C-alpha cells in the first residue's frame, strides 16, 4: 500500500469517528439522542474549547509546566536508573541483596505514592517529578542492568585480547551496550515520564494539563475534559516523534530499529 493511500485511510478513520460522534450527540435517532450532550459533549464544542485555549494563550502555561515536569522526571529517572543499573550489574552481591526489594518496589502501583509525594514535596512540580521518576527509573534500571549483564562474551574477550583495561572495557564495551538497551526503551520511559506528570497533576496541583482536565471535570465541563484529552494526545505524539528522531540518530548501528523501513 502506498503512503498516500495509507494516510488517506488513517484520516478517514478520524473523520468517520468525529462525524458519528457529532451526529449521535446532536441528531435524535428514533426520538432519542444516543450520546447525551451532558456526558459526551460534541466535537464542535470540544474544538471550540481547544481554539479558545490557544487563542487566549492559557494553554501554553499548562503545556510548559507538564513538559518541564516530564523532562525533569525523564532526566532524573534515567540518570539514576543508569547509575544503579551499572552498579548492580557489576556487583552481583549488591544485586542479590537488593533483588527482593527492587521487585517489591517495582510491583507497587506507583499511583499510590502520589499522595505521599504531595505531602512531602507540596503541590508544586516536584511531587509530579518524583512520581514520574519512580516510573522511569525502573524501566531504565532493568534495561541497563540487562544490557550490562548480556554483553556478548566474545565481544568482551575480544576487547580483552586487544588489550583493553577495565576502564577501556567500560567505555568501549559495557557503556555502549547499556546505552543501547536504554535507548531501546526510550519510547516507554518518555511515555511514563509524561504519565507521571499528568497523573500527579490530576491528583493535586495548580497547573498543567492534568490540572486542566481535573478542573473541567470538577465543574462537569465534559467539552473541557475531552479538549484536555486531545491536547494531551497531540502533546504525547509530538514528544514521541521527537524520540523517534533521536533514536534513529543514536542507534544507527543497530539492525532492527533504523533499517526496518530501508
Amino acid at each position: 500500500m502506498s503512503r498516500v493511500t495509507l494516510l488517506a485511510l488513517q484520516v478517514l478513520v478520524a473523520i468517520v469517528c468525529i462525524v458519528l460522534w457529532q451526529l449521535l450527540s446532536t441528531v435524535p435517532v428514533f426520538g432519542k439522542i444516543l450520546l447525551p450532550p451532558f456526558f459526551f459533549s460534541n466535537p464542535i464544542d470540544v474544538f471550540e474549547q481547544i481554539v479558545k485555549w490557544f487563542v487566549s494563550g492559557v494553554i501554553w502555561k499548562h503545556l510548559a509546566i507538564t513538559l518541564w515536569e516530564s523532562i525533569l522526571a525523564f532526566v532524573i529517572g534515567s540518570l539514576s536508573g543508569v547509575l544503579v543499573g551499572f552498579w548492580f550489574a557489576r556487583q552481583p552481591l549488591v544485586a542479590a541483596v537488593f533483588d527482593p526489594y527492587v521487585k517489591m518496589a517495582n510491583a507497587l502501583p506507583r499511583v499510590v505514592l502520589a499522595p505521599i509525594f504531595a505531602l512531602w514535596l507540596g503541590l508544586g512540580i516536584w511531587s509530579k517529578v518524583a512520581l514520574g521518576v519512580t516510573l522511569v527509573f525502573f524501566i531504565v534500571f532493568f534495561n541497563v542492568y540487562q544490557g550490562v549483564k548480556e554483553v556478548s562474551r566474545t565481544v568482551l574477550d575480544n576487547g580483552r585480547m586487544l588489550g583493553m583495561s577495565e576502564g577501556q572495557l567500560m567505555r568501549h564495551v559495557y557503556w555502549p551496550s547499556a546505552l543501547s538497551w536504554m535507548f531501546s526503551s526510550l519510547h516507554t520511559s518518555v511515555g511514563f515520564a509524561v504519565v507521571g506528570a499528568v497523573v500527579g497533576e490530576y491528583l493535586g496541583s495548580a497547573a498543567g494539563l492534568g490540572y486542566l482536565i481535573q478542573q473541567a471535570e470538577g465543574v462537569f465541563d465534559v467539552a473541557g475534559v475531552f479538549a484536555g484529552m486531545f491536547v494531551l494526545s497531540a502533546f504525547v505524539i509530538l514528544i514521541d516523534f521527537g524520540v523517534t528522531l533521536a533514536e534513529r540518530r543514536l542507534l544507527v548501528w543497530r539492525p532492527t530499529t533504523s533499517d526496518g523501513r530501508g
Partner: protein
Amino acid sequence: MTTPTAVALEDAKVAFRLGDGRVYTAVEKAHLAVAQGEFVAIVGPTGCGKSTLLNVAAGLLKPAAGSVKIFDRPLAGLNRDAGYLFQADALFPWKTALDNVAIGLEIKGTPRAEALPHAQKWLTSVGLVAFANRYPHMLSGGQRKRVALAQVLIRDPKILLMDEPFGPLDAQTRQVMGNLLLDLWNADRKAVLFVTHDLEEAIALADRVVIMSAGPSSRIIGDWRVTLPRPRDIFEVRMDKDFHALHREIWGVLKDEVMKGYAQSTHAAEAV
C-alpha cells in the same frame, strides 16, 4: 640457526569443573611448539578441545597442569603478544568498520587522529576501504571477518591465534579469505596457530598440521609437515598431487577419530 619458539605448550592439561561437581578433562598432556614465523594448524573432530587449547595459548584459560611459554617466558594472565581472531562475531557492533580497526591502536594510547589513517590503510589491504563507514550489521559475514582481521593485525601482534575464523563462511568466501590471510601473513610471517575442523583448509594454509584425538581427554596424536611450496594459491594447491597424498595420509588417522567423536556425541545424547 635456531628460530625462537613463539608458543610452547608443555604437557598442558585442561579440565573443567562441571555443574554436578565432576571434573571433565578436555585436553590431556598436550605438547606443542610453534616456532617464530611458523604457520601451524590444529585439526580435530568436533568437541576435541582444539579451541580450548587455543584459549590456553591466549591466556583466556589457565591449564590445570603443565606450562605455557610465550617466547620462552611463562605466560601469566593474558597473552599480550598475541592477536586473537574469534569464530563468532567479535566486532564492536556500535563502531563503524573504520573505528573497529582504529580501536586496536587507540587502546595502546595512539591518538585517534593518528590511528585513523592507519586503520584506513588496513581496511585498504583487506579490500574494504569503500565500507569504512558501515556498521558491522551492514556488512556480510566475509566482510566482517576482514574487518576483524584488520582489527587484530593493526596492532602488529607477534603471534596470531585463530579459532576456526572462517568457519561460519560459505565455501567460496572461505577460500578467498584463506588467500587473503596467506598474502597478509607472507608480508611478515608471524607465528600462527590456526584451529579448524577442515583438513583441506589446514593443509592448504599451514606449514604443519597437528591432529587431535576425539574428546574427552583428547591428545595430540599426529604432526605432519606440509612441504608444498610457498607462496601458495589455495585454489591451485588443492589440485597438487602432493596435496592429495598428504591429505590421504592424514585423513587415514583423522577418520577414526572423527567416527569416535561422532559415536561419543550420539552416546552422550542418549545418556541424557
